């Protein structure tokens, strides 16, 4: 397993596109994390001007709520690692290196396993990034930090890992299907922003909630704020077991479909 992962790492470590996209991801997500409080403060100030009663401010960075807040925000950035995944798998088709890997002695399953391991690695890296930034911001902005404050809501990080991993497995499957990067990226965006929303629009919630994008996105719900509570809106502030099981189920389905494709296809 370590050998497969090492092979994968040496494949993408020399790839310029990989580093550019990763760098962009880290910079954007950090900027957003560090800037979100200023944005919220501004929002609160604006709202207070028009409000007859003083509205309470929102602190995005206080531990342990920061884990929920940051993982929720980070969810919007998972398109970057997904693009990386699509480019890495479609490159293997474009360069025909997938075929050469098999010729050199990989089984088809070895090839797939090495890719799945790299997806897990990317998801882990994305989770670690949130953890590190969260820790810095949280420690700065929280008074009297206890052990429980820091590590009390780690389930959000675990859920974030699963969310990213499931999304990357989906992107990988699309890359496998399309073989060409442009087509794959087009399909991914088309599915996410048009096909699924349209399909869900007409369907009752008990069906619509089980669509992949919806299921993966619902794992971490919108963080509650005092304002929302004032308006009587209550979001899910925990990770539900049903949601987790559903997303894990999707991971298995995407993995199985990718396996079926590579097994049946002439490379």
């Amino acid at each position, binding site marked *: 397993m370590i*050998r497969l992962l*090492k*092979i994968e790492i*040496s*494949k993408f470590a*020399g*790839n*310029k596109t990989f580093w550019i996209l990763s760098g962009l991801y880290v910079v954007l997500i950090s900027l957003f994390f560090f800037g979100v409080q200023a944005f919220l403060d501004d929002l609160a100030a604006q709202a207070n001007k028009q409000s007859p009663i003083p509205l309470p401010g929102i602190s995005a960075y206080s531990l342990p709520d920061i884990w929920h807040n940051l993982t929720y925000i980070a969810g919007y950035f998972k398109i970057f690692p997904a693009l990386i995944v699509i480019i890495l798998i479609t490159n293997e088709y474009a*360069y*025909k*290196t997938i*075929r*050469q*890997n*098999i*010729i*050199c*002695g*990989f*089984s088809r399953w*070895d090839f797939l396993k090495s890719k799945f391991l790299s997806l897990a690695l990317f998801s882990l890296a994305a989770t670690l990034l949130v953890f590190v930034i969260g820790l810095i911001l949280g420690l700065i902005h929280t008074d009297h930090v206890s052990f429980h404050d820091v590590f009390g809501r780690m389930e959000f990080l675990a859920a974030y890992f699963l969310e990213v991993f499931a999304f990357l497995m989906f992107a990988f499957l699309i890359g496998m299907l399309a073989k060409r990067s442009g087509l794959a990226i087009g399909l991914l965006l088309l599915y996410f922003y048009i096909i699924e929303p349209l399909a869900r629009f007409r369907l009752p919630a008990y069906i619509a909630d089980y669509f992949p994008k919806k299921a993966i996105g619902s794992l971490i719900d919108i963080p509650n704020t005092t304002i929302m509570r004032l308006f009587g809106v209550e979001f899910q502030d925990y990770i539900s077991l049903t949601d987790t099981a559903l997303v894990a189920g999707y991971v298995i389905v995407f993995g199985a479909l990718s396996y079926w494709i590579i097994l*049946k296809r*002439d*490379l």
Partner: protein
Amino acid sequence: MDQSILSIRNLSKKYGRIRAVDELSMEIPKGSVYGILGPNGSGKTTTLGLVLSVINPSAGSFSWFGGIPSKADRTRIGAILEVPVFYPYLSGEKNLRIIASIKGCSCEKIPELLDMVKLTERKNSRFRTYSLGMKQRLAIAAAMLGNTEVLILDEPTNGLDPQGIAEIRELILRIAAEGMTIILASHLLDEVQKTCSHVAVLNKGKNIFTGKVDEMVNASSEVEIMAYDEEGLDRGLKENPHVVSYAREGNRWVVKLSEGYDSSELNQYFLSRKVILSQITIKKKNLEKYFLEILEKK
């Protein structure tokens, strides 16, 4: 009977109604340089893809080293299908390292192999920047990584300049001399004739001829000659016991020589008779004719 490295039994691959490989059977003996000859689209690459497990067969079977096909077989085979395939953004050496870890062998042999294919100086340049000849040579180095027992080359000289072709052929012969089995797919008769010991001729996915190259090439060869002294020429040909047959074609004579008697000896013979040949050309050996005949018959 030679030991078989690869046996192919009734292997078929259909793409819709097209039969790219049609009930193909073949035995490749250990230590041979085996040419798979056929025009473009005759199923050479598909056949190699099938035995390398990158294409799923429609029917039939094959076996490497007498066993059941497995991924372990492929670590004993070095193969290049169609074009050299590497990660273009990585250096030649890094590409070889990746292949070594896929094969599960050590990287120790890499410097020696880079030396063999004369790429040591360029080992840190990206694969993308290599010339076609360099790419082809890197592919041969990659194929030799690990405990390679069989080397599969698919049109290895395609698109190369004459110097590149000469380099690759020399390399193949050097590797063959070390006792490695080589399977060489080519549409060039000349190439097969110059490098191979055995040959199978494919057409439309069928194996239409199998045999040893030297049996196939008729030992007697043909030359075309011209001389101003036509009478002396005619008489000389008639009286030379090494001339099997001759015929006049336009202003030149096509002469078939017996085994072991070549054009220089013929030239010498005429000189001694004071007949000066104004032209002497060795006609392409008979493999080409043979090949065309076989193709026409089917």
